[in-house]
């Protein structure tokens, strides 16, 4: 009798294992492979941005990026909007694909029609890990810098808006900013060398 019970239990267990492995196989077939999305690497200047602007005030959440908080006085604000389809992809790039948690000077401004939708956007895309500000109506970013386009990047040096870009690929944007800074540094060094007496 005991043998029969054990036999039935073993049979049920074996059937359960088969079902389990079949489920895993089915699940694996439904999961897409590694993303092979090729994003547009274009990064171009945003003409309408008021370069040279120094914001009269920094909103809560972005104070540390006003040029005094991160050592070298530089910061980059990414302006995303809840109404912009590409901005969701930019947010995904920041958090997981491929992720840019190492970008210390980064801040995110979420322009939105209302606070609730902005908060949802931040929560859904995990932007809470970055310095961020939900800009209702886009009032702060448009009043301070004349920007009403997303996705855009505002690059500050010592609290002053130095350059502004429209972009689609965060990695391409970072490379562009890095190259621009290196070029400026070389220009400064060249001009200093020319000023020095021979």
């Amino acid at each position: 009798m005991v043998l029969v019970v054990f036999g039935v239990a073993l049979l049920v267990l074996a059937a359960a294992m088969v079902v389990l492995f079949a489920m895993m196989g089915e699940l694996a077939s439904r999961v897409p492979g590694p993303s092979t999305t090729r994003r547009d690497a274009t990064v171009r200047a945003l003409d309408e941005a008021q370069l040279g602007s120094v914001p009269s005030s920094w909103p809560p959440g972005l104070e540390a990026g006003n040029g005094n908080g991160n050592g070298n006085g530089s910061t980059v604000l990414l302006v995303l909007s809840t109404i912009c389809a590409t901005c969701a992809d930019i947010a995904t790039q920041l958090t997981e694909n491929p992720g840019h948690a190492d970008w210390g000077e980064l801040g995110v401004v979420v322009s939105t029609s209302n606070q609730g939708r902005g908060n949802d956007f931040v929560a859904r895309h995990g932007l809470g890990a970055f310095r961020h500000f939900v800009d209702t109506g886009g009032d702060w970013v448009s009043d301070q810098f004349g920007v009403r386009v997303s996705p855009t990047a505002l690059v500050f040096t010592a609290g002053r808006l130095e350059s502004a870009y429209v972009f689609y690929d965060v990695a391409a944007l970072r490379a562009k900013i890095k190259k621009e800074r290196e070029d400026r540094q070389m220009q400064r060094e060249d001009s200093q060398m020319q000023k020095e007496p021979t």
Partner: protein
Amino acid sequence: MTDDSSGTRATRRWIPGRRAFLGGVGASGLATAATIFGQATPASALVNAGCCTLCFSPSHTVAQCETGQYYVWSCPYGSQFLYCNCCEHGASGDNCNHVTYSSYSCQY
């Protein structure tokens, strides 16, 4: 030679049936697990138009939208110099609750 080839054909006939059966078992198991343990995510009713993500299908012009209380924002769309203006009218409440209608237009 003949036996080998016929044996191969027999094997090939049998594998898809086994795969289909196990696939069916797996799909049934997943469906059952999803029914028991799964929690549906909130339905998203947002509409994509151009580069805009709107609360409703566009029903008015942007000029009409830009009256009273509204939210308008731009985004680059496809070609480098094509921009869309995305507008939501009456956007005062949380999420899309108080949006009365949406509109968009794209231009170079």
